[in-house]
């Protein structure tokens, strides 16, 4: 697995650039990741990213857009507005988590 430097910290990533170690992540890194995919972080973005981080801690897998709505309380419409076109993948990338694995 490649190790690269983001926001002054060495992090493990996969070939696509997704972080592979939960504990490598911090909010400074998230800002850089967001910039990489042309997303400007606002409070609304952060709220979702923090939910994903917390949820992963208890569930051991990345929440799908449906779960971000049903458990996190962030409407799917908002997820599409904040992370356009591919919210599931973009949210997980910025949160330093694997892509959601579920079909639903």
């Amino acid at each position, binding site marked *: 697995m490649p190790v690269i430097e983001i926001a002054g910290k060495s992090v493990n990533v996969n070939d*696509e650039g997704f972080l592979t170690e939960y504990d490598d992540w911090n909010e400074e890194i998230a800002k850089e990741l967001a910039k*990489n995919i042309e997303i400007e972080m606002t409070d609304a973005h952060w709220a979702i990213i923090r939910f994903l981080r917390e949820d992963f801690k208890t569930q051991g897998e990345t929440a799908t857009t*449906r779960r971000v*709505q049903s458990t996190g309380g962030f409407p*799917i419409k908002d997820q599409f507005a904040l992370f*356009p076109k591919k919210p599931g*993948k973009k949210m997980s990338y910025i949160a330093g988590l694997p892509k959601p694995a579920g079909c*639903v």
Partner: protein
Amino acid sequence: MSFIPNFDDDGNEGRKIAFICTKANLDMAYPALIMGNAALGEGVEVDIFFSFWGFDLIMKNRQDNLKFNPAGNTGMHLPGSDAHFPQSMSLLPGMTAMATWMLKREFDKLDVPPVSEFLDIITASGGRLWGCKLSADMYGVTEQDLREDVGGIITASDFIEIAKGAQVIFI
């Protein structure tokens, strides 16, 4: 290597998938919902046209009361076994209720939402739902019987127009 994922936002620009849902058996309701939802999450436009029995999926009073019965489905197995489900048992009293209950339980285990909630998710993600005019006339239903987010009751020609440039999947 840059190690920045290429989400290829524009790669699916203009890509469209149109589903034609003609079945209301519980198992046959889901393929379009699952694939349509996945397509929307990939930035692909989705239209779903509900026709014939599939019309039940957008009827408020029917969409969460779909049924399943193994009759005619020789691919059905006894639970947890490679043995086939005997077709003669399909018509035993209560079999539809039991098979429906079992299938719903399996969906629940995998956190697959009921039809109504699934369609909520699809429209919230930008998917569009359409009812078939011939089916509406046949069933004697009006837009009042349908989910509020159905774009309209449209003719076959309307659908052909909507599906221009789309990949069409018939279920």
